[in-house]
């Protein structure tokens, strides 16, 4: 049998709340530490205990990190989903299960190798506390997998030791459970399997981190001092990580006091209100939420746009309108965020694709919000935010200074003789702010969501209203020059593909798959909204342009067409919105189908 190294998908089927997460996490971490690129996906229910949950690890030495359809090794530990789990295995794959009870006839598959391990029975003799047995079940199959896949055992034991540092009493029994699994496999099963791992150095200096933690660190490094939030999956861990790190890194040495304030608000309306109040008063503030929260923040976002208050939001998108599928991923809040609020409003969006970008963009969003005096929304999603992703290490240039934008201090106010909050002196649509309490006589003004003139005086004059709205439009064009540029890889091919956020994960692989069938695409990864001219140049330069959206309504395509006045005919929409992240196979299938349908030429040779 030909051995396949470092290239397979393994899925663990467990019961929610049964403590499988840590064992499964250790599995992925072990391979990562062996230098093998892995990507993990936690497919969990909106439930705390008892419902089915899956953990998927893709192992791929070429660095393909997107979701791949089909499973090579299924670790089936949940009787309830047994049937569908067995059905999901690729022909030639493996089924690892607990054969303490015999496997039902109807479930057998001739094209799948069964690996039965009597885990329950084994543990019965070893531990008398049933709760312990439950937990160690997971550790035991981890031990068996070590043998079956050739995972360096001491890497795993090492992790156990670090994980339980402090509670040393737990280390031994855990390692023992690992050994039970390993030994059984060694003794009774032919190890290793066709699928094996082996140490490489493909990981390099990358780290494995979830996007929410990275975003929280970005906000912390970016100087956010006020965080107001309301719990909601999948964004909760942003605020929780911010608190955890702030309690370590934001404590005043002398006094031990805190250089931050975190408020778990009573709801999202309050959370965004707190952010806006804090930012109005000169503090850097942010909130993290998901779709339903964005909907509730709509009115306040309109106020911040019109009253020109900085605000940073991190929208970790989940699936569906309304509650939808709260534990699934999508990119379906684009329209809601871009045009949030009644009246003519538009908001700046950033689209991170990696944890590193979650960190960078969270920090940059604070600069942009201050510079543009408007809300900036970082559009992450569950796939990026809640799963451990391989990522470039986080970096901070210690020379970097925060851009607080156009703010007049007391001295500056002394020097100007007639200041107007909404005067556009620089032709970029941005006026000069003052913080409350700056100067005894000058610079005070009344901030309002109602129409006002350049000097912040209330007015209902049509001309003043239009002047103000036109200035905001000009500011919008300024924003297009300040948001992160699209990442373009163009070599003059006649077709291109546009994508953003987590659609980047499967893209490399999709492109290679397409290349194999003679389809070669230039690529553009969007990173900011409003779009810079490079975005429209890329579209002009290509006869066919695919736009990948993880939503039903092709929302990014809508933004491109609407903001650029493009002919939508030129844009071919590639969509997936089932709630799992889009796979390379899926992208390849849809692009390929379009080529066939519209008889586009395929090249066997890559030009250029």
């Amino acid at each position: 049998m030909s051995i396949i190294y470092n290239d397979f998908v393994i899925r663990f089927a467990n019961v929610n709340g049964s403590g499988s997460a840590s064992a499964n996490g250790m599995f992925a971490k072990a391979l990562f530490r062996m230098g093998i690129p892995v990507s993990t996906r936690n497919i969990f229910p909106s439930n705390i205990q008892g419902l089915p949950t899956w953990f998927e690890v893709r192992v791929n030495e070429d660095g393909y990190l997107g979701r791949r359809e089909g499973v090579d090794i299924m670790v089936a530990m949940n009787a309830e989903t047994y049937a569908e789990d067995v059905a999901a295995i690729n022909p030639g794959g493996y089924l690892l299960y607990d054969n303490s009870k015999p496997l039902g006839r109807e479930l057998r598959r001739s094209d799948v190798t069964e690996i039965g391990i009597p885990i329950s029975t084994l543990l019965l003799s070893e531990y008398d506390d049933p709760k312990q047995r439950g937990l160690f079940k997971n550790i035991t199959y981890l031990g068996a997998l070590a043998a079956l896949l050739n995972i360096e055992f001491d890497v795993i034991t090492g992790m156990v030791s670090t994980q339980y540092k402090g509670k040393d009493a737990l280390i031994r029994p855990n390692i023992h459970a690992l050994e039970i699994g390993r030994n059984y496999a060694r003794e009774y099963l032919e190890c290793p399997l066709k699928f094996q791992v082996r140490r490489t150095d493909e990981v390099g200096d990358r780290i494995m981190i979830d996007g929410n933690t990275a975003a929280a660190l970005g906000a912390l490094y970016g100087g956010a001092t006020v965080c107001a939030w309301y719990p909601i999956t999948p964004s909760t861990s942003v605020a929780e990580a911010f608190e955890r790190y702030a309690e370590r890194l934001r404590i005043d040495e002398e006094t031990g006091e805190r250089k931050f304030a975190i408020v778990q608000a009573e709801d999202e309306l309050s959370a965004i209100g707190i952010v806006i109040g804090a930012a109005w008063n000169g503090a850097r503030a942010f909130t993290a939420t998901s779709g339903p929260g964005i909907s509730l923040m709509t009115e306040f976002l309109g106020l911040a746009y019109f009253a020109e208050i900085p605000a940073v939001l991190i929208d970790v998108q989940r699936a569906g309108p309304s509650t939808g599928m709260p534990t699934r991923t999508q990119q379906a809040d684009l329209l809601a965020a871009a045009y949030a609020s009644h009246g003519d409003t538009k908001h700046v969006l950033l689209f991170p694709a990696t944890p590193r970008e979650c960190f960078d963009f969270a920090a940059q969003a604070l600069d942009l919000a201050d510079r543009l005096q408007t809300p900036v929304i970082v559009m992450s999603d569950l796939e990026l935010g809640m799963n451990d992703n391989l990522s470039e290490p986080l970096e901070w240039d210690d020379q970097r200074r925060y851009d607080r934008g156009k703010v007049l201090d007391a001295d500056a106010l002394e020097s100007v003789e007639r200041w107007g909050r909404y005067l556009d002196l620089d032709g970029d649509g941005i006026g000069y702010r003052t913080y409350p309490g700056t100067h005894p006589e000058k610079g005070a003004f009344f901030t309002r969501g109602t129409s006002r003139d350049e000097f912040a005086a209330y007015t209902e004059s049509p001309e003043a209203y239009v002047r103000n709205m036109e200035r905001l439009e000009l500011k919008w064009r300024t924003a297009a020059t300040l948001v992160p540029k699209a990442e373009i890889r163009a070599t003059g091919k006649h077709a291109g593909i546009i994508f953003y956020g987590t659609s980047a994960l499967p893209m490399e692989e999709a492109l290679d798959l397409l290349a194999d069938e003679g389809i070669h695409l230039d690529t553009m990864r969007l990173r900011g909204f409003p779009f810079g001219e490079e975005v429209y140049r890329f579209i002009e330069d290509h006869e066919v342009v695919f736009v990948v959206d993880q939503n039903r309504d092709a929302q990014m395509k809508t933004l491109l067409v609407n903001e650029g006045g493009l002919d939508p005919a030129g844009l071919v929409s590639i969509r997936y919105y089932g709630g799992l992240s889009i796979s390379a196979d899926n992208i390849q299938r849809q692009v390929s189908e379009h080529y066939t349908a519209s008889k586009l030429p395929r090249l066997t040779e890559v030009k250029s």
Partner: protein
Amino acid sequence: MTFVAKPKVHHPRLPVNELGLTRRDYEGPVSTLCAGCGHDSVSAAIVQACAELSLPPHRFAKISGIGCSSKTPSYFLSRSHGFNSVHGRMPSVATGANLANRELYCIGISGDGDTASIGLGQFAHIVRRRINMLYVVDNNGTYGLTKGQFSATNDRGSTSKKGKPNLYEPIDLVSMALQIGASFVARSFSGDKRQLVPLVKAGLMHRGFALIDVISPCVAFNNHGGSTKSYEYVRGHTESVVAADYLRNGYVAAAEEITADYEPGTTEDVRMPDGSVLRLFKLDHDYDPHDRVAALTHVQERQAAGEVVTGLLYVDPHASDCHEILDTVHRPLNTLNEADLCPGNEALAAINESFR
């Protein structure tokens, strides 16, 4: 800001305060509210209180929601920044403002519609959070700016201008604040400057959350017979239990004589860390402004009897505020810079390591 400015020339006869400023320096542009609107009296009381306390007129953050009442921050303290936000959400905006700069005096102005209807949830939660601010409700029992619908503080049976009776029990913000645990709870009447001005002073200087529910008649829509929020009705149905005054450090002596006005009544002086004094004049001998539950009981009982209890109903002079609870640094958060806030790349390298 351009506005119909009142002449700022120092009128020789206007008294100047410690800062050498007169009342005028604490005023704002001419109000655009209806002539006789109670809200303008509340603004005037705030101007007088701030002037008499000699507080720097530019060191306030004035936050409001939407409504006639919420417009008033533009009519006082024009040297300070104001923020007329969205309807019912002033508490959250004020919370953010106070977190960002704990040194500014934070005044929130709201209406009964703004606070008791759309804003009730935010109101209850800002009380819980003990934000250090003075929260004033210009309570007229109606939606002035939208032309006279009943608000949630309107009493059952009180009638509209057209004579329709209100069908629902009122929400009493004072009772709610007491029940949730506000550390300073007062009620007053825009028509009673003598009671209101000192309460505003005490509320401003109180550390923690201070509520003043000011009954402030709407002459356009809720000042008719049949209304229980009319000037006439309120005058006839208030029972003042505890008057208060705030005497600044060193000015205690100066103000002794006020006390006289309040005989017969037992006086209690609460000394503040900074040496200033919160002076309470008990007009009702067996009323204890430090007993929250008793205060709540009293207010509820009198309300059932159609009486409106006014004065400083409850105060805990030693209450904590949100910054103490959150243990934030004493420097305003909005003054911290890279050096204070950014842990730097070395710390980040260590963090990276923890994810390998």
